[in-house]
């Protein structure tokens, strides 16, 4: 035990104060950014918010049947990167995105492509729960309705029920489906938004801290859901919980001040990180 602590001590002893501010030189991402069977391939993605260079030259694959977790200190650009993947940064007038992101070989960042089917394919759960000011039922039914997934009330009822069940919310809301979703508690809203997203069966699911307001039991349900979704789909998840990243993901990416410092198999990132900053972060020395 003592020796591990000492090993970390020596490996992080040569961290300089300048490592923690923005003026560092960045020599490229450590580790293997590619996935065995890539669903999404991001190359040299940059995002500016006006003059703020939020993420720099990020290249990363998200593979089939894979959960990629993204970790890193607050403000390092995890949400920004995630929002690139389904073009949600379009809704921020100040945001500018460059580089290349491909979904099944098709360029996503092309101005000409239609973002509507893209977003139906690449679903997203936001960092802040944002239920519609409609009933719980209507919140879930919204997506299936606009995509015409079901034509019958019974089918829709069933879809709503299974979505809520998979998100672990059914027992809590089954008697109040007609009440407004905005009246639920923070954690219930978070699960409502997860249920809403999976109701349209997206093939790639982006989750931005989906368990930040959940108790351990609800968190376990969501992690089970993620494991189950992985059988068919691809998932990118942002989390501040190392344990969660270790439990649910196959690969982990460490972001630092807008750079993707290191990518690797989850076990390797947590047990044998290459970069000093990654090591410092995963062992809880800062962040």
């Amino acid at each position, binding site marked *: 035990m003592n020796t591990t602590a000492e090993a970390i001590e020596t490996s992080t002893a040569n961290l300089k104060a300048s490592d923690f501010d923005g003026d560092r030189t960045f020599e490229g991402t450590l580790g293997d950014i590619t996935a065995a069977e890539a669903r999404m391939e991001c190359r040299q993605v940059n995002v500016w918010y006006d003059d703020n260079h939020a993420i720099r030259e990020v290249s990363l694959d998200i593979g089939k049947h894979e959960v990629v977790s993204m970790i890193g200190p607050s403000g390092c650009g995890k949400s920004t990167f995630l929002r690139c993947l389904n073009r949600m940064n379009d809704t921020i007038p100040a945001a500018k995105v460059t580089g290349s992101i491909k979904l099944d070989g098709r360029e996503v960042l092309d101005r000409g492509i239609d973002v509507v089917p*893209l977003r139906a394919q690449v679903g997203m759960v936001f960092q802040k729960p944002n239920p*519609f000011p409609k009933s719980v039922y209507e919140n879930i039914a*919204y*997506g299936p309705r606009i995509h015409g997934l079901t034509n019958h009330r019974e089918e829709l009822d069933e879809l709503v029920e299974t979505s809520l069940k998979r998100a672990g919310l059914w027992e809590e809301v089954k008697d109040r489906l007609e009440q407004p979703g*905005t009246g639920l508690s923070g954690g219930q809203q978070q699960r409502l938004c997860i249920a809403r997203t999976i109701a349209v069966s997206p093939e790639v699911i982006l989750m931005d801290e989906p368990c930040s307001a959940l108790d351990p039991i609800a968190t376990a349900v969501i992690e089970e859901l993620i494991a189950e979704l992985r059988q068919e789909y691809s998932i990118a998840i942002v989390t501040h919980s190392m344990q969660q990243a270790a439990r649910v993901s196959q690969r982990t990416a460490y972001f630092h001040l807008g750079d993707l410092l290191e990518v690797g198999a989850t076990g390797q990132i947590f047990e044998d990180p290459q970069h000093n900053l990654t090591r410092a972060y995963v062992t809880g020395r800062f962040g």
Partner: protein
Amino acid sequence: MSQTLLLVVILAAMALAFQLGRGRAIRTAGGPTGIKHLHSLPAYYGWYVAIWAGLPALLLLLAWIGLEERVITALLVQGLPAEMTQDLSEGRVGLLVNDIKNLATGGITSGDATPVVQAAAERYRRWTGIADAARWVLVLAVALAGLSVAWWRLAPDFRARNRVESTVLGILVLFSSIAILTTLGIVLSVLFESLRFFQRVPWTEFLFGTEWSPQIALRADQVGATGAFGAVPLFTGTLLISAIAMLIAVPIGLLSAVYLSEYASRRLRAWSKPTLEVLAGIPTVVYGFFAALTVAPFMRELGESMGLDVASESALAAGAVMGIMIIPFVSSLSDDVINAVPQSLRDGSYALGATQSETIRRVILPAALPGIVGGVLLAISRAIGETMIVVMAAGLAANLTANPLESVTTVTVQIVTLLTGDQEFDSAKTLAAFALGLTLFAVTLTLNVIALHIVRKYREQYE
């Protein structure tokens, strides 16, 4: 002039009192280090003494200014020889008093001054001199007395903050009650005049009668002018014109708000919103002659060319122009409400693969609906109360009709015609205006209350 000087002196006394109070508080606490033993901060003790020095003196000064002239005038009239005033009307006495005052201040008088008047002027001059001096002495004495009383009361455990804050509260309550009382006064006066009207014309006839011709016989032997006060045609006319106005304003205003807030580029927004708001700044009288001189003739010609008979003062013309007037009202309120819908809801919808129009129809408009309804109700109450356009463009004929091509009249138009021109103040005709005003007020008040209630309910949703 001397009033202003006195005011300045009182303010100076307050400033002095502040310093004294604050200094004394610090001294009784045993110097700056002892401040923590005081109940309140030293400034509060200063304010407390300043309020005592200033407030009673100011109130006294205010009362004095209000009463002085009246008291002196009364004394002056009493001082005049009885045979001079006893058979003069009130107005003549006023004239006489004016003469005396003018003489006293060296102004122009209406005739040659008799010795009696000159003596009175002399007295007047003397009394105002005394009053001036007395005012100074009394006001300053009160200020000083207030200051010393407050100063003596100061002690470390004196609750100066609570006293000062309750005084401030009292002043705030006073001012807000002035606003409320004024409104109440207006409402009550309208109410009482309406009650007088309803003594002459039963309210059932007023509210349910279908004939409106408020001509009352001036002479007993006049024929055909008994007067009919059935307000139904006026309210249906108002309703018809408002309905036409809303039919134009709501779709145009709402759609332009949706376009501006959801689709327009930032540059377009930056200049089109102010442009729309310029529409709101056009005086209604301009809209009025626009309606009467441009739109109404145009509609009549258009109607003729289609073989329709359009009155030259049609409800359609007035309603259409009123609708145009209300567009910026609806669009700017709706725009605010739509913009208040959080971006995260739009994001949520887009992330599910919804198109922009689906998002607007299914998420944004439903979320903004209560606010939009509130805005529309406010716009309706504006349309109902609008006067200038209808006076100029809607005509006077009290027709009970739902045909927008005919001429109708509105409640506001009738109030204007009832009250302009010569008439006795207590004739049924004049009083009818108050009854109409009261009814109109009740209608718009109800609409506003509903609107505000809806708007407030909507606000709670996102806060």
